[in-house]
């Protein structure tokens, strides 16, 4: 099988400027069919703008993009028939009920009135919204709102589903529900492109991740590859006796060949390691020299650490501004 036919989404050199702002500044993406692709980045990184170009809502200033082989500019209508977008903000009509919204979309997509009604009932039940079917969407809770947004995107099951920050602002339980929905969608064969500011979310769901910052892809790979790019991980050691910590620090520094950090916890030591083989050896040496080790662990670096290593700053979203300013454009 050839590689290009395996790709659901293929973008090269995508650029979008708003005045002097380079919202998207040369983005390349390759999303394999049937996978979840995470686009990870902080607020204002250009995620929404990129997704809007891939879903034909906005035209690139430069570069090309194809969805299942169709050019998003020249064959926009064909692309619209294959993709579905759940935007970051309300993407259903808040004045209408859940049923009315789904029937509306079913009719617009070509179902008869009866078929649209049947499909709406089926989806509302599947998404646990049966009881809220005849309630106006503006009276839905945050989690219910997100579910109807996603249900509205799969009235006709799309080949590629774009989810723009699907869990931003949700409580953990609603977030898990959205994750479950995404997993089922993918197991049914839909390709999902997911933007998120949550590293945990990309880690949990995505087969591959593009880290995007200031409109550019700064790293790409599986979450394992991204983590490996900043070293194997960190070793954490806790001693039985705090008095033994200086001796333990000396031994570990020598054995691992890296600086050892002393935590606030008087019995804890932490070191970033490049080679996990050294760790077992170092712990054995500590025990052999009579230093009591209460516990130790070798943790993979978190994607937070990855982001920090790549950009020099943490990826924590700016919690004061929920909205991506890029969305206004």
């Amino acid at each position, binding site marked *: 099988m050839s590689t290009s036919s395996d790709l659901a989404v293929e973008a090269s050199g995508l650029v979008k400027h708003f005045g002097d702002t380079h919202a998207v500044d040369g983005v390349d993406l390759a999303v394999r069919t049937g996978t979840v692709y995470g686009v990870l980045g902080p607020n204002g990184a250009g995620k929404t703008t990129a997704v809007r170009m891939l879903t034909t809502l906005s035209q690139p200033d430069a570069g090309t993009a194809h969805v299942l082989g169709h050019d998003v500019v020249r064959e926009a209508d064909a692309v619209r028939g294959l993709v579905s977008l759940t935007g970051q903000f309300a993407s259903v009509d808040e*004045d209408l009920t859940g049923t009315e919204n789904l029937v509306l979309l079913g009719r617009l997509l070509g179902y008869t009135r009866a078929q649209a009604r049947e499909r709406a009932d089926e989806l509302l039940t599947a998404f646990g919204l049966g009881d809220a079917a005849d309630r106006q969407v503006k009276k839905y809770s945050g989690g219910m709102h997100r579910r109807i947004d996603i249900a509205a995107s799969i009235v006709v099951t799309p080949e590629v589903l774009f989810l723009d920050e699907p869990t931003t602002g949700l409580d953990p339980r609603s977030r898990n529900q959205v994750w479950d929905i995404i997993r089922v969608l993918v197991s049914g064969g839909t390709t999902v492109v997911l933007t998120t500011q949550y590293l945990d979310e990309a880690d949990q*769901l995505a087969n591959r991740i593009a880290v995007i910052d200031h409109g550019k892809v700064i790293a790409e790979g599986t979450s394992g590859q991204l983590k490996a790019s900043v070293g194997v991980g960190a070793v954490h050691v806790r001693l039985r006796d705090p008095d033994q910590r200086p001796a333990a620090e000396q031994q570990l520094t020598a054995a691992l060949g890296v600086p050892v950090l002393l935590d606030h916890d008087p019995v804890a030591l932490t070191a970033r390691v490049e080679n996990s083989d050294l760790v077992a050896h170092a712990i054995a040496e500590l025990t052999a020299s009579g230093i009591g080790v209460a516990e130790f662990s070798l943790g993979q670096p978190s994607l937070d650490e990855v982001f920090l290593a790549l950009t020099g700053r943490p990826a924590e979203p700016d919690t004061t501004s929920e909205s991506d300013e890029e969305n206004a454009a």
Partner: protein
Amino acid sequence: MSTQPSASPRAGTSSTTVDDSLAAALSSRSRPSRPSGVTTSLTFGWRALLKIKHVPEQLFDVTITPVIFTLMFTYLFGGALAGSASDYLQFLLPGILVQTVIITTVYTGFTLNTDISKGVFDRFRSLPLWRPSPLVGALLGDAVRYAIASTVVVVLGLILGFRPDGGVVGVLGAVLILLVFASGIGWIFTTLGLVLRTPNAVMGVGMMIIMPVTFASNIFVDPSTMPSWLQSFVDVNPISHLVTAERGLMSGTASAGDIGWVLVATVALTAVFAPLTMYLYRRR
């Protein structure tokens, strides 16, 4: 069931029933054939009616305002302008009908702008549809609002003593021609709705256009008492031509020229502002 390598055990355990019904809901991957532009436009019109059903307050402007205007102008100015309120009403009613409906067209742009500022319009734009259908559908829904406003004004006029010589056919013809013209005007406000940033700006600019154009016309008084510069404006004002056609239809004396003028103006407005609206809509 999950073939996702990265799927955690949680997927299988937390909400099994949801997963099963969801998987069933997703199992059909068939795609209905693409609907016609007429179907999708009518569907958007249906959406506009649903919004009226859920937010009936939005009908105030087409029910209460026309009543206030008709009563106010008839009884405030009727005696002074025409000798008696009932004589004035014969003259005023076709004109106040025009003003009421033309003011309502501003709401078309207001509603469109409000719609766009929410995310739902992005969803419509990402669907494989005949592209003008959300806008055509909005205008269809607004035609219902114009019809309601017309009914309120005509029924109130009849109660107050308005007696059209053109009879039922004349009045229905007048309302029909007015709705046609209003949908042409509606495209001006869809254009404004796409150009301006906020719904309130659409309202402000819209009223700034509508107020002078409706007052500097033959709606309220015979232009023969106006200064000549104003008369020449009133004579070319499209609203005056529309009101003349409305008066003609309601009194059974309309000329083909009057009606023809309104239809040509409607076609011209649509030919200019519908493509402009679509151009702006595509560019957003």
